[in-house]
């Protein structure tokens, strides 16, 4: 999970990810790390402020192909969707 440190996530966040997710989910996330990195960077770019919470609670969505995530977000009014996700991370389910 060192790549998360390189992306600026704290040890505390990494520990919470480990506590909240089963080993097979974490292993899958590590295998999909290149795609996950792109998703993280894109989410930050569009001002999603709760990327750490998404990692802790919805780690599996970072395995979804980055291009598909980007296109899906672009279909929405991105600023409204981002505001909703920042309120309640469940709004990511709109994608």
């Amino acid at each position, binding site marked *: 999970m060192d790549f998360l440190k390189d992306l600026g996530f704290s040890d505390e966040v990494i520990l919470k990810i480990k506590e909240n997710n089963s080993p097979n989910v974490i292993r*899958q996330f590590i295998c999909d*790390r290149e795609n996950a990195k792109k998703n993280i960077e894109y989410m930050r770019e569009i001002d999603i402020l709760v990327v750490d919470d998404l990692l802790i609670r919805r780690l599996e969505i970072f395995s979804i192909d980055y291009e598909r995530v980007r296109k899906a977000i672009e279909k929405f009014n991105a600023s409204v969707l981002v505001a909703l996700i920042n309120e309640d991370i469940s709004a990511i389910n*709109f994608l």
Partner: protein
Amino acid sequence: MLTDSKKIIKLIENEIGILSNEINYIKDDVKVYEKLYKKLSNSRENIIDISKKELKELIFKFDIENKENLFKEILTVQKILKMNNDYSSTLRLFERNEKAFDSFMDELSKYDLESDFIKNKIEKLYSKQKEYEKLIQEIENDKFKVNRKNIELIEKIFLENNSLEDRKLIEEIMENEIENYNDRIKKSKRKEEKKLAEEDLIQVFNKYDYKYKTMDEKYRNYLEKHGDLNNIDEVFSALLENDYPKIIDEYVLTSILLGSNKSTIDTVTSFSREHRLIPKSLLDISGCLLEQRDEPKTFSDYDYMVTGSSIDFMRNIITIKSAGLSINYIFQKCRSILTMPNALLKYNIDLFNKYGFSFEYKKRGIIDPSPDALLSPTFAEICDAFIEISPNGLKYLTDNLSNVKTVTNPDALMFYNIYLSEKLSSVEKEDDPNNGPFRKVLEENNENYQLKAIITRNRPDYRNTPYEGITEENKREKTNTIEVPIKGKKKMTRIIEENKYPNISDSIFNNPYILSIDKYISEDSALVYDFSGIRISRLKVLRVYDTLLKNGISNSIDGFMYAIFYNTIIDEDGYEKVVRCIKKEVEVR
């Protein structure tokens, strides 16, 4: 050899002497207690002759709790009996004094050299002495091993019992020894670290057209440290025979070379072909190609790398198909499900259907929260919590099923925020459409419920300003919620925790207690009991009460009430309301 063996031996010998004294003290005590027991058995009035100081010393040597209390009671006994004796009065002992005197006599009767109580006490001290004598022999014969057990033993002997000077000496000695010990461990570890030679690995990699030297150093180290050359060769060969494409990802490649073997690859690949999963797809969920492993307690990077679930994977394929779901759909939406523990998946699919959720809802989008919910280790508890916490809780959960997975604790702070928000909105601003914990969002003509940021506290700018001042520490106090008093709660909680995947038996539906509250099943949902406006999850009550009955708890009101209030966030008023309803149907103590 220990650095300062003579000093250590002397200290251990002292300790053996102290133990011998302790044994003698016990034997002396036995004589005193035996004599007293006989004296008091003849007549309890004889207690008058014992001084307060003597009594205190006697009682405070007992192995019991509440020595202070027993001492006070016995003094009262002594006073009453003395008054009767001195003034020929006929004062009677209170019931509690009688009981205290009986306990006092019971304790005295244990002091018999032939009793197990004394035998065990003395035996423990003898075996300690033997352990210390063995330690001295090991030190004298230069066979003392500085291992964890011996270090702990020496620390225990000296750090607890000896003078400051002795402690300093032993700390100094132990420090040196621990350093030496750690050095030895490090050296032996370094020897173990490089099991495989780089040249051998280069050769095997070349044989299958892979480049070893260009791999990341981290992965090369893993292979050299943990690898088995024959197995690596066989794994490469099995991948080739089963038509796997060249593996580009070094993490995936290393994990397969270390965590798999020929037989696992052959079996999983052939099974998957039968279910239309090609080798290229399997590499996207490579955990399925690794040998099944039980979850280790701590996770290092290496442990994650070799976490294998080949058996769970094959079972999951069958389970998913039997549930009428498409493997391809699960693969697209949430591939981690394919490698999760099979027992949990089976259990969660069953709960998913029982709570009435559907997999159809989000099929068109790229994220479907329904399969994500199946990953939850606390599926039922979280559903129950949402059902009970608000009349809109189930609607919110159905709209956002992933919450079954994202919220992991039914006692989470968020539930207290929702609870209070519902309370405040129903009392203060009944007509305000914006009150309450939820907001409504229109999505493709569907009204979708979302939680407000003041409730979720997810957004960084809200994190330091708790909703209505509620924090993890004061959540019960701020919401006036209570821990419901139930007799035998501890035992029942242990039973519930031990039963990981409980089923609901058919027989529970005919249980008299359960039948008695059928009339409270809500008109809006069969998942809810409505006790004068207090919502209780019906599946929770059935599941918990059934589990208790199956595990030796008798069919009683205590177990039934435990099931009703299990994990329920409730205040005194709500509790009274539920009890009043149940009282009408059954007798409640």
